[in-house]
């Protein structure tokens, strides 16, 4: 996991609510045993037609789309299946952050564990972003703020623990393993209780 402290990029907008993880990566790509090689699978049924040709009407295929590292989407982004492949596919496609007014729980948890910054902003700001695709945003994790091109800045909530992991590029497993004594004590106390 690469450390992420600041991000400056143009946005790509998917102006739709309830984009589920089956859209982000269709289930037929889930037979893999690897994390890698999923960039092509990202939004595969949106980007490609039945014959495997790129769809011209899909914003993910537009010129310059691959330079956009910030994805702006409607409410309840990432709902549905818990597949972490959705996060891997988005990252491998080139996204480093996802902004929505409301993110699905499991998707958000998965994203933050992989260095994909998943944040919720207020509905009016997201509504504005949805209407203005391609604007350049400045995201700073140090003070948890997103700055718009006009200089207006908006704070976001990010769990301090997840924020530290993102900024330092570490995952939570090391922290968990350092708690082995506590875990063992809990196991002993539960064995005694039952």
């Amino acid at each position, binding site marked *: 996991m690469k450390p992420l402290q600041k991000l400056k990029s143009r946005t790509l907008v998917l102006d*739709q609510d309830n984009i589920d993880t089956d859209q982000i990566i269709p289930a037929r790509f889930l*037979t893999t045993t690897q994390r890698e090689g999923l960039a092509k699978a990202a939004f595969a049924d949106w980007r490609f037609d039945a014959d495997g040709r790129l769809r011209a009407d899909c914003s993910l295929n537009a010129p310059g789309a691959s330079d956009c590292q910030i994805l702006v989407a409607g409410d309840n982004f990432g709902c*549905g299946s*818990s597949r*972490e492949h959705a996060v891997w596919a988005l990252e491998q496609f080139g996204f480093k952050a996802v902004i929505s007014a409301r993110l699905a729980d499991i998707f958000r*948890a998965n994203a933050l564990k992989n260095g994909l910054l998943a944040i919720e902003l207020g509905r009016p700001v997201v509504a504005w972003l949805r209407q203005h695709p391609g604007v350049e945003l400045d995201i700073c994790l140090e003070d948890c703020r997103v700055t718009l091109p006009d200089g207006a800045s908006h704070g976001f909530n990010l769990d*301090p623990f997840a924020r530290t992991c993102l900024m330092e590029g570490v995952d939570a497993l090391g*922290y968990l393993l350092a708690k082995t004594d506590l*875990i063992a004590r*809990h196991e002993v106390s539960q064995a005694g209780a039952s």
Partner: protein
Amino acid sequence: MSQTLFEKVWNRHLVQDETADAPALLYIDLHLIHEVTSPQAFTELQQRRLTVRCPERTVATMDHSTPTWSADLQGQRRYASEQAWEQVQTLMENCDRHGIVLHDWDSPNRGVVHVMAPELGLTQPGMTIVCGDSHTSTHGAFGALAFGIGTSEVGHVLASQCLLQRKPKTLCIRVEGELGPGVTAKDLVLHIIGKVGVDAGTGHVIEFAGSAIRSLDMEGRMTVCNMAIEAGARAGLIAPDQTTIDWLRGRRHCPQGEQFERAAEDWLSLASDPGAVYDREILIDATTVAPTMTYGTHPGMVVAVDQPVPMPADGTAARALEYMQVKPGETLQGRPVDVVFIGSCTNARLGDLRAAADIIRGRQVAPGVRMLVVPGSEQVRRAAEAEGLDRGFINAGAEWREPGCSMCIAMNGDRVAPGQTAVSTSNRNFEGRQGPGSRTFLASPATAAACAVRGCIADPRFLDGEPEVCIHFPSPRHMEARP
């Protein structure tokens, strides 16, 4: 102080409480794994030279990528791809290497993870249960705190038997009154999601309570909790009661004899205390629920089968109607159907198959309709075959397959062709969920079977135009699967 069911289970499993800086450390009693979401977690463990902390608390099955065709005479199975076969092999190797019990092809208990674990009594009230699968909420029907996790978290649980979690909020959905004749748990949960919305439960666990929930059998409760995630909640819970205890008694992994009675006493004490406070409460009237189906591309776009499809609320909904080729103002009844799927962790238990078989009995699957019946587990398959349900389906023109997730997620080769209309007892009607370009209408097993025999969307209560006196919806006790 009064506590909710969720708070009681949560508190019992706190290894370390949350602070402003760090999430809580929650102990996990049971970790269910399958072939799709575990391989990368095992790779991570291997790379870090870690072992599985509690193989005895980890149980594996294979369900998503597995073919539902029987093995041929040489014992070969028809996998959808080389990669699907490799994935299943990888699970076998990982379980073997780490000493994890795997219910593989030879196990009499293999099945869809959320069907087989309760059957074996692995799922017990008051437990914390996780699985790399969003429908883990199913196990909440027993008063367990059960939720889906991603592959990174699968790795965390394998290595530490714990998860880092922020305490979620609580939402109580109270369903009062009696469900009408021919109205099932599936109709109820679709109705609920339609009322509260697909993100009402985000950040919450849902407790389903009220007289209509208490009068459901365990299978119905599992159907309801299974779809808590479709309302945005990672977990759905129902308080353990005598129905729960009776269902669990004698199951293989449950305590036995005197120990069971002691455990049962403890389980009954888990129910939310009188006066316990939830962050939110929603009241639902069960008497207004009719056989309900989805008409759009998420499980909150629902309508009673005999009611007109509402006007789209926004652009996203309008796009969904276009994809589904559904017009506002029309009823779903009479819409031609290509495929009917009876299966999935939502509705592939014995009671579900019986409900479908009751409709099929004495009738035929309509010409041009493909009906696929996929039992949820080997136990369900055997019980159904012992009653002759398989013959009933086959004689009516349906396909009777081996257990697995099958057409619910369409990973194993069982899928709906582009442009086809499917009525499915599964849980998700997302665009392309059952195959690229497929159109899915979610329904109860009774409704799905009615659609199969009519060849179009139909109300199971009035199958031949007259109220169906011959359709009996058995009382809860009779719908129980045997241990």
